[in-house]
């Protein structure tokens, strides 16, 4: 199964082409082709997983050479796949969650005239994402990286007949481009230092490079990761990306694509090993984003935007864990996997709510949906418990470990990172409970013509599967450190280190904060009735509701100066460069204009000029001698 792992990518890619080329003929059955392609990929992925599990831990990697891709002088790049526990973990997450979301989308997009195109894009995304995680060089990874960017752009702007959605797609694309520059620069530095961009050469040779070089590469990779994973300071696109259909938000902007940055940082662990400063920046970015996202989440009334803020915050946790070094890598990926399940489940739940409520997304217009949508309520509730970190649900096992790991170290770092993670957990509990209570409990605040109803089985079954994952996956993977041992061949073993506060204290503190968060949400949004019109916001709420004015900051810091610089350059181009060229042309033209009067057409005047010339020549000769 490992040698044919290229099928992982080839099947959905082929399906993408079939769906695009077949045209309207495929409208009736195209979505099932999409589902089948994704399922086939999942089967190949599971087969590859079992093939790897069957081996000794030290031999669990397989390099699959595909073809010589670039053979240009010193730069020789082979296209090849690398299957190891880390990439297979991603493959399983992408294909399984992806397939569930494909199935869900069949029903969710049933009334959309362009459902076939939607599935084509989804398959393109699956193919690109699998390429991203299985590539064996940074350059091939970059192809997948751009591929998921394109798929994300196409899907955010899927309903691009609404200008705001098209703008959101552009925004995501542009923010991602800023990050991509980082990846390109990093690859250039790698080539300069190691003469190669393959994982084996770069990561294997990292210990021989200077700290400054590794720091530069690490920071550039981090820039790429912040773009793709919506981390501070490139976080602004994720909220608007919710313009895409909800299954897209679940698959791309919650479970898989936005975690690619975490994958990149963990994969490049050997580089960060030699660049402690770059690693520290990763952790700081993660800590900032986890708090930023959580605080934004408290003020959003749009259910999808609240979930998007939560995604940002949870990826902040992963980034923080990845920035802690080998102690955190396994937990970063662990949280990534559990988050993939519970957040995708919750997004699908939100989609189910929207499905039953005529695409309403304002939580102030929800309430009391528990009785109308029992399955959605239960599955969403499991996701809610998981993200809260309530034992024994999934999030507890992964997030608690990150909080513990954040408290390991000396000096100021464990306190800053640990307390950020701890406070983040409390705020998470508050905003997720707020979301949950406002949506499913309290009084019904529906508009008059709404009749909420449960979604069809095609939608609820994937939600149930994801809910089971939200509930038990963490426990299953945490027992006997199964997940850590599984990833150990890639991210390295790490000796157990004691946090600055003892583990029971930390767990208790986390749970107390979670209970406080839930209690506060209970008091504010369940005991008190929720007004349909948002009350006049306090300053803090105003700041959070406007995403910490990220757009205004970007506008003031980049857009406005950028516009001015561009205008100046355009003016300079017109006045100086074009001006010089045009002046030359004008001068030549006027010279020609002047000389044409000499061409009188009169033979005798020509003769006169010739004679004058002869006289002048003669005069010169006479004078000269």
């Amino acid at each position, binding site marked *: 199964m490992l040698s044919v792992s290229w099928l992982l990518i080839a099947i959905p890619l082929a399906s993408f082409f079939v769906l695009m080329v077949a045209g309207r003929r495929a409208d009736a059955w195209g979505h099932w082709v999409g589902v089948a392609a994704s399922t086939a990929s999942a089967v190949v992925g599971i087969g590859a997983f079992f093939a790897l599990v069957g081996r000794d831990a030290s031999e669990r990697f397989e390099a699959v050479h595909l073809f010589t891709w670039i053979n240009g002088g010193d730069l020789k790049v082979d296209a090849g796949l690398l299957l190891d526990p880390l990439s297979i973990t991603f493959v399983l997450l992408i294909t399984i969650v992806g397939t569930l979301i494909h199935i869900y989308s069949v029903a969710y997009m049933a009334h959309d005239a362009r459902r076939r195109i939607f599935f084509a894009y989804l398959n393109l995304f699956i193919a690109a994402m699998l390429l991203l995680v299985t590539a064996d060089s940074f350059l091939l990874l970059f192809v997948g990286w751009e591929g998921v960017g394109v798929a994300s752009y196409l899907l955010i702007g899927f309903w691009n007949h609404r200008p705001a959605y098209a703008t959101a797609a552009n925004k995501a694309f542009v923010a991602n481009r800023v990050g991509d520059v980082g990846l390109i620069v990093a690859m250039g530095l790698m080539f300069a230092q190691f003469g190669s961009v393959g994982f084996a050469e770069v990561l294997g040779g990292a210990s021989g490079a200077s700290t400054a070089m590794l720091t530069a590469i690490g920071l550039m990779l981090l820039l790429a990761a912040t773009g793709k994973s919506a981390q501070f300071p490139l976080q602004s696109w994720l909220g608007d990306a919710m313009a895409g259909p909800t299954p897209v938000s679940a698959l791309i902007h919650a479970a898989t694509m936005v975690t690619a940055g975490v994958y990149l940082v963990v994969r490049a662990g050997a580089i960060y090993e030699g660049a402690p400063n770059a690693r520290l920046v990763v952790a700081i970015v993660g800590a900032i984003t986890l708090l930023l996202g959580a605080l934004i989440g408290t003020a959003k009334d749009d259910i999808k935007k609240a979930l998007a803020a939560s995604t940002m915050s949870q990826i902040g946790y992963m980034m923080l864990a990845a920035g802690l070094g080998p102690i955190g890598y396994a937990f970063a990926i662990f949280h990534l996997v559990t988050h993939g399940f519970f957040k995708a489940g919750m997004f699908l739940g939100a989609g189910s709510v929207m499905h039953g409520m005529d695409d309403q997304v304002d939580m102030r217009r929800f309430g009391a949906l528990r009785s109308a949508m029992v399955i959605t309520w239960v599955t969403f509730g499991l996701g809610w418990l998981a993200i809260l970190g309530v034992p024994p649900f999934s999030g507890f096992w992964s997030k608690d470990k990150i909080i513990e790991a954040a408290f390991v170290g000396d000096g100021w770092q464990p306190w800053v990172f640990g307390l950020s993670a701890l406070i983040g957990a409390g705020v998470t509990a508050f905003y997720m409970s707020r979301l949950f209570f406002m949506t499913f409990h309290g009084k019904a605040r529906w508009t008059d013509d709404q009749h909420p109803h449960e979604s069809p089985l095609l939608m609820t079954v994937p939600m149930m599967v994801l809910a089971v994952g939200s509930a038990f996956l963490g426990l299953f993977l945490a027992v006997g450190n199964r997940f850590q041992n599984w990833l150990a061949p890639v991210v390295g073993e790490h000796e157990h280190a004691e946090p600055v506060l003892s583990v029971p204290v930390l767990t208790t503190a986390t749970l107390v904060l979670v209970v406080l968060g839930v209690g506060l949400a209970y008091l504010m949004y369940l005991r008190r009735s929720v007004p349909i019109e948002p009350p006049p916001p306090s300053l803090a709420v105003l700041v959070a509701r406007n995403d910490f004015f990220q757009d205004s900051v970007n506008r003031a810091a980049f857009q406005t100066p950028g516009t001015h610089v561009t205008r100046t350059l355009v003016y300079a181009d017109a006045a100086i460069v074009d001006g010089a060229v045009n002046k030359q042309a004008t001068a030549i033209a006027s010279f020609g204009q002047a000389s044409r009067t*000499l*061409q*009188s*057409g*009169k*033979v*005798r005047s020509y003769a006169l000029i010739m*004679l004058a010339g002869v006289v002048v020549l003669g005069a010169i000769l006479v004078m000269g001698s």
Partner: protein
Amino acid sequence: MSPINFVYLAAVLFAIGAATVLVRRNAIIAFMGVELMLNAANLALVSFSRIQGNVHGQIMAFFVMVVAAAEVVVGLAIIIAVFRARQTISLDDPAELKG
């Protein structure tokens, strides 16, 4: 008689020829002016040959005569062609090449 006087004569003849070309409109007359200038040059060349005491100038004069003969053939042919086309041989009349 000093050969330098022939050079003076040549200069006078050249000036007369040049003036003819510049002031006369009739192509035949102007053509005669050109011939006069050519032969003035020949006279000057031969005089220089005499002054220098070698034959370089005379050889040059032969070349000029050959060129002049060829020039007469072409030039008269052009004049006849122009006359056929426009019934006039005024030099000022054809001015289609005015810039």
